[in-house]
């Protein structure tokens, strides 16, 4: 193709830069504003610089317990990440072999991805409500009285909440696995088999090392999507709140920069996870280059 940059390049580059500013500008505005002085308000100009609002967040402003929500979201995000990685890699391997029902699972995942979140959330809420109703009012008829004794609700962070998050993260994990295996050279597996490797050895010593950087990517999606998830959790999380739900609640009540401080802290966790993941991916790719001869060339 042509070697000189045309006029269109500079126009499009300007559009791209404008888009990036549009993406990041507002976020950086609140990062800056979260360092407002104690007298500062919700908008510019800055009224001094301090960590006042960060202290306020950690003290708790009496309305909500941010620290507890923070820990809950962190724990849930970690569990969602691990489950997403394991189930996605396993299912991805199954799709490579092919199995009855593969098409059904694929379209179920797509449907789960694009289903309006409020519908999924409502459905899970109904499911658990009906379950609770059965356990509380009809357990004896079913001979489950011993089990249902003292039953209050099955809804919770690691039951309905976890399920709600997985309906959102698993489709991403599966799609990433598809993208990986579309670019994967199947002859490597055949070669391993011909050399006498068992299926597990083939996976452990051939497939996994090659796909590992992308698997870290699945983990990144799993954690960050759960950490920030709001719409699907809204009805399905039970009596406790995750951090994004607390934040959403604060948008209507808080008129001080402590919401920005909380936003800065939340984003800091996101950025930390993102850069950690990218760093690990980089390191793994560098390692592949060093040891892997031509392995991984089909994977970018």
């Amino acid at each position, binding site marked *: 193709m042509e070697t000189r940059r045309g006029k269109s390049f500079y126009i499009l580059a300007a*559009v791209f830069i404008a*888009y990036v500013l549009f993406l990041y500008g507002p976020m950086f505005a609140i990062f800056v504003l979260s360092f407002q002085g104690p007298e500062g308000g919700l908008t510019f100009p800055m009224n001094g610089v301090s960590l006042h609002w960060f202290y306020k967040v950690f003290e708790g402003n009496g309305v909500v317990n941010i620290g507890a929500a923070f820990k809950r979201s962190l724990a849930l995000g970690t569990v969602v990440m691990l489950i997403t990685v394991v189930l996605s890699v396993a299912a991805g391997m199954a799709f490579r072999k092919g199995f009855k029902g593969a098409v059904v699972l694929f379209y179920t995942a797509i449907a789960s991805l694009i289903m*309006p979140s*409020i519908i999924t959330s*409502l459905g899970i809420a109904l499911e658990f409500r009906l379950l609770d109703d059965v356990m509380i009012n009809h357990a004896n008829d079913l001979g489950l009285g011993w089990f249902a004794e003292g039953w209050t609700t099955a809804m919770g962070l690691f039951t309905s909440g976890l399920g709600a998050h997985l309906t959102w993260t698993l489709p991403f994990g599966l799609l990433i696995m598809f993208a990986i295996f579309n670019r994967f050279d199947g002859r490597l597996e055949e070669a391993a088999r011909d050399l006498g490797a068992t299926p597990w050895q083939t996976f452990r010593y051939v497939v996994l090392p090659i796909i590992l950087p992308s698997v870290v990517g699945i983990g990144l999606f799993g954690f*960050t999507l759960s950490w920030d998830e709001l719409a699907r959790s809204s009805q399905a999380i039970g009596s406790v709140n995750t951090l*994004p739900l607390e934040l959403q609640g604060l*948008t209507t009540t808080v008129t001080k920069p402590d919401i920005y401080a909380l936003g800065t802290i939340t984003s800091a966790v996101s950025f930390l*996870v993102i850069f950690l993941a990218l760093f690990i991916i980089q390191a793994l790719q560098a390692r592949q280059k060093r040891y892997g001869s031509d392995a991984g060339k089909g994977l970018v």
Partner: protein
Amino acid sequence: MTKDRNSLIAWLQAGPMMLVFSAFFLLPLVFVTIVSAWDYNEYEMLPALSFRGYTDTFEGCIAQLPDLCTILKTYAKTVKLCFLTWAITLTIGFTIAYFLAFHVRSKTWQIVLSLLCTIPFWTSNVIRMVAWVPLLGRNGLVNQGLIDLGLIKVPLEWLLFSEFSVVLAFVHLFTFFMVVPIFNSMIRIDPKLIEAAYDAGATGFQTLVNIIIPLAKPGIVIGSIFVITIVMGDFVTIGVMGGQQIASAGKIIETRLNALQFPAAAANAVILLGITIVIISALTRLVDIRKEL
């Protein structure tokens, strides 16, 4: 190794994911459909066949014709916001994808710039919404700037908690869903086709319309499905950016839920689902999703 054993292993590998989807996605959808046809009173649902959820929703709609009743007005507004968002995200998303696919030549730069577009997607949506407040508020940067420039005398009120700010936030949050699939389609276009068009004397615009857009169509359709389904069902963005004042299809469901009218909420969910399915099936006629990954 026999074929039977192989397919058994495949089943064990795919089974857990299928179980999760069955328990937390398919079964809940069944419950939504069943409960939508139940009766209810002020505080609980009653498991008896009744279509009150539906009839309450459309109450008075026929009597009020030709004026639109609340529910139809709400849907009209949701569709309008959806269309605006779709048109803007498509335009921006296509331009950005085009730049990344055809103007950025080194692979490294392509990865770096794509990452730059992706990173905000991994951060919190609520925070990205709240972030507009200091810019668009009555005393925000935009109003101050316009006043300082002498362009306006009183602050503009429609910048925040309005349809404008809702669409702005949608575009801000969801253009990503357009960029990725369109970029993915464009990157597979054989550069030789574009060279051939150039050699045959096509202008840049002709190449764009006759070669790039048709070949990027699958990406455009997939991106459109994402954006349209997200916006149709949204209640968080519309809530936060509309100052809880703007009604939408998703917000109706939320309102009914807060009033503990589960069958009514479920009926509205079924209606929303029906409309979404119609839109998606119309769009998927244009493209085979499975082939595009």
